[in-house]
């Protein structure tokens, strides 16, 4: 399809020039997916160390790790180990959110398929796209470096959790430069996402093919549009929030220091004004992917398309006005807690609409259980599990029993580690044939699913019991009564680790066996525009714009 008459300036660059200087949305998308995989693997290894440590009461792994990673003095190794555990939980959170889920779901799949799905040749600002990606690489490097520079007195790295609350993150708790590295990493990641968001919004509003009205756009494009607006709205708040922390730390301001008239709670409000929409930023593209997959493999259009699209808009709006439900124990007024309880519970309504609409899409369909569909069905179940415990935690009254405990850990891992990651794998298997041109092995893909499905449920379901029993989170060691469920939880990591190994093997297998996928491996259900192109698509697609007549869903 790539026409030879258009050669010249738009010729195929090769090697380093192709990827380093890339302005091609598909190449940049691939780079994002690779970066996200690297971030995800590091984040996974951190969580593996954490689960190994927590398998038995007592401190076993981390003192040795601290000696190995930070060159800690053996006499100080126990303290260094306790600090390193906190550093691990912090970096695990930062990596999984900013360098795994967001790059793959938004940067990777968004870049690859938003232009194709709306019938555009590329993103609106290809060079902006390039800098969004490379800023994120620099940001990842800064985040990882932060683990190895001075943080808390006599310690390496910042260990205060991914929410970076001062005074633990200010000079009181972390005088060393580790926190400054984290702040600069957040600045770069934020700038990267803001530029990306501008690019997506412009592309979606201005570059749709003739006939592709907003109400004909595939739901994945809708999800990226809502996500991009959320990013644009909340990331500047995060940037301001951490910049004030930076000036508090280095230039003597007192925004968050009560000794100078500041207030640590200001930070929390600003952080969660970003932080709560952020969880929807991570999950909304997943909703989009699941909608495409469920429709494709049910061979039916999505049930209640408009309801689905506006449910996402509604989730985006509501998600931006409920931030203080992360702060029920800070001592807010009764009325503020009442408002945030009710507003938070309302989010269950549009989320419920989405769950039921996916099931209604499958109802009456002709389901084929290919790997992406199996992942998508898995997603619907685990996300429901995470959603309902969210309804419990939405209640300020009940939250006072669960706040900062393992019930919360179980809840957000069911929505993210299971929800977002299952959507990510579903999208990966759905589009892998399109992106690479090769079919993956169906058997291996399903082995990957079952290993991860069993694994994460064994890891996270018992954490509900730990939370109910009163175990606080971010603990390197716990009272002996919590030993049983911690051991079960750590046991699940065996399956999770195996599933990751299988996933690598799926990719190696696909590229070695070279089973050609063809333009549309999924049959009549796959109606979006990417399936009209060859696999992999030409370097530049849609040099003649497609015309959309009927339903473009």
């Amino acid at each position, binding site marked *: 399809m790539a026409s030879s008459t258009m050669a010249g300036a738009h010729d195929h660059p090769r090697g380093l020039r192709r990827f380093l200087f890339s302005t091609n949305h598909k190449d940049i998308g691939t780079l994002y997916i690779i970066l996200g995989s690297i971030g995800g693997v590091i984040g996974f290894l951190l969580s593996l160390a954490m689960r190994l440590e927590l398998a038995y009461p007592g401190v076993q792994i981390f003192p040795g790790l601290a000696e190995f990673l930070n060159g800690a003095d053996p006499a100080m190794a126990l303290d260094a180990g*306790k*600090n390193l555990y*906190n550093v691990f939980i912090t970096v695990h959170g930062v990596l999984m959110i900013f360098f795994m889920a967001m790059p793959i779901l938004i940067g990777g799949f968004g870049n690859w398929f938003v232009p194709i799905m709306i019938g555009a040749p590329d993103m609106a600002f290809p060079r902006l796209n390039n800098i969004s990606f490379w800023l994120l690489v620099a940001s990842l490097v800064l985040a990882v470096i932060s683990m190895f520079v001075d943080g*808390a007195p006599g310690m390496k790295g910042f*260990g*205060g959790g991914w929410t970076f*609350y001062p005074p*633990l993150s200010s000079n*009181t*708790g972390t005088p060393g430069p580790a926190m400054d590295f984290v702040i600069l990493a957040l600045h770069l990641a934020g700038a990267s996402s803001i530029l990306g968001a501008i690019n997506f919004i412009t592309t979606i509003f201005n570059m749709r093919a003739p006939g592709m009205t907003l109400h004909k756009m595939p739901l994945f494009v809708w999800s990226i549009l809502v996500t991009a607006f959320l990013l644009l709205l909340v990331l500047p708040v995060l940037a301001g929030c951490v910049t004030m922390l930076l000036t508090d730390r280095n230039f003597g301001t007192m925004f968050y220091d*009560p*000794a100078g008239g*500041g207030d640590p709670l200001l930070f929390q409000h600003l952080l969660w004004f970003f932080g709560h929409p952020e969880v929807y930023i991570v999950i909304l593209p997943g909703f989009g992917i699941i909608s495409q997959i469920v429709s494709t493999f049910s061979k*039916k*259009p*999505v*049930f*209640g398309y408009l*309801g689905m699209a506006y449910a996402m808009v509604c989730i985006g709006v509501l998600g931006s006005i409920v931030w203080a439900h992360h702060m029920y124990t*800070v*001592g807010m007024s*009764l009325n503020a807690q009442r408002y945030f*309880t009710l507003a938070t519970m*309302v989010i*269950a*309504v549009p989320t*419920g*609409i989405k*769950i039921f609409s996916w099931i209604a899409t*499958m*109802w*009456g*369909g*002709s*389901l084929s259980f290919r790997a992406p569909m199996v992942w998508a*069905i898995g997603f619907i*179940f685990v996300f429901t599990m995470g959603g*309902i*415990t969210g*309804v*419990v935690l939405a*209640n300020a*009254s*009940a939250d*006072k*029993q669960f*706040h*900062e405990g393992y019930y919360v850990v179980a809840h957000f891992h069911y929505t993210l580690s299971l929800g977002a990651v299952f959507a990510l794998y579903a999208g990966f298997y759905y589009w892998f044939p399109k992106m690479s041109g090769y079919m993956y092995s169906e058997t291996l893909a399903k082995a990957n699913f079952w290993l991860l499905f069993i694994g994460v449920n064994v890891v996270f379901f018992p954490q509900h019991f730990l939370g*109910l*029993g*009163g175990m*606080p989170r*971010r*603990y*390197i060691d*716990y*009272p002996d009564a*919590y*030993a049983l*469920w911690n051991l079960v939880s750590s046991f699940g990591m065996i399956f999770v680790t195996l599933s990751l190994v299988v996933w690598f093997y799926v990719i190696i297998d696909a590229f070695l066996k070279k089973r050609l996928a063809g333009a549309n491996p999924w049959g009549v259900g796959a109606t979006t525009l990417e399936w009209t192109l060859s696999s992999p698509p030409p370097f530049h697609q849609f040099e003649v714009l497609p015309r959309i007549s009927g339903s473009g869903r």
Partner: protein
Amino acid sequence: MFNVNRQMLTRGALAAAVAVPTILCAGVALAQAEGQPVPGGLGLPNMVTPVGLATQQLYNMVLMPIISFIALFVLGLLIYVCYRFNEQANPVPSKLTHNTPLEIIWTLIPVLILLFISVPSLRLLAQQVEVPEASVTIKVTGNQWYWSYKYPEDQGGGFGFDQMLKPESELQPGDLRLLTVDNEALVPVNEVIAVHLTSNDVIHAFGVPSFGVRMDAIPGRLNQTWFKVEKEGVYYGQCFFICGKDHAYMPIVIRAVSREKYNEWLAQAKQKFARADSRVRVAADSR
């Protein structure tokens, strides 16, 4: 066939919806030791305060049955759909994409469920936040990494002490690793205890699971929470907000005793903890 399956599924889902909470509540009932975590426990701890009991009731009687039912309902629907509408069973897909009454129902029913939840939930919230007239006020301050308690002079106190984790090497039989401390904080039973919370360095959080109490200790702010212990005993809590390397090593121990024993303890403690800097009063009774 369709009907039979639906009936079976409904019945199965109902049975499971009843069974699961029952099993989980049984975990609570089996719990013998009070005030400390139960090995292999499945549910909330035994509660000993009015707020704690109301929390337990809200979770065990309202929230958990509802969410268990919803999870099983969605699981049941998914299993049914996969069984009934797979390629073999249903080779020709329908074109159904809209059903307005259905969409209104699945919007309205969740709204009703949430309204139903919000009534007891908001009632409990008010109970937690509005501190009743207290007979004893304790000021608790978080430090890296221990808690300090101050008992005001005009309530028979006038002393303060630090509560530190007992190191593993000094544990006696019956002590709990990571929970037993050097100085327990005593309170009288069946009296309202107000806790004033702040911090000297970073944010900590004061949490005692069997009281249903969890509140942040924030530098520069004075937070207030309360409890009324209705049963004598020793109750353990921990720090619930990450505060640095020894976050896991700053437990809380509250011992609830009769008024007489409490008064005796006050007299002894005044001697034991007599320090110049610990003479505190309830802030000139601001009421």
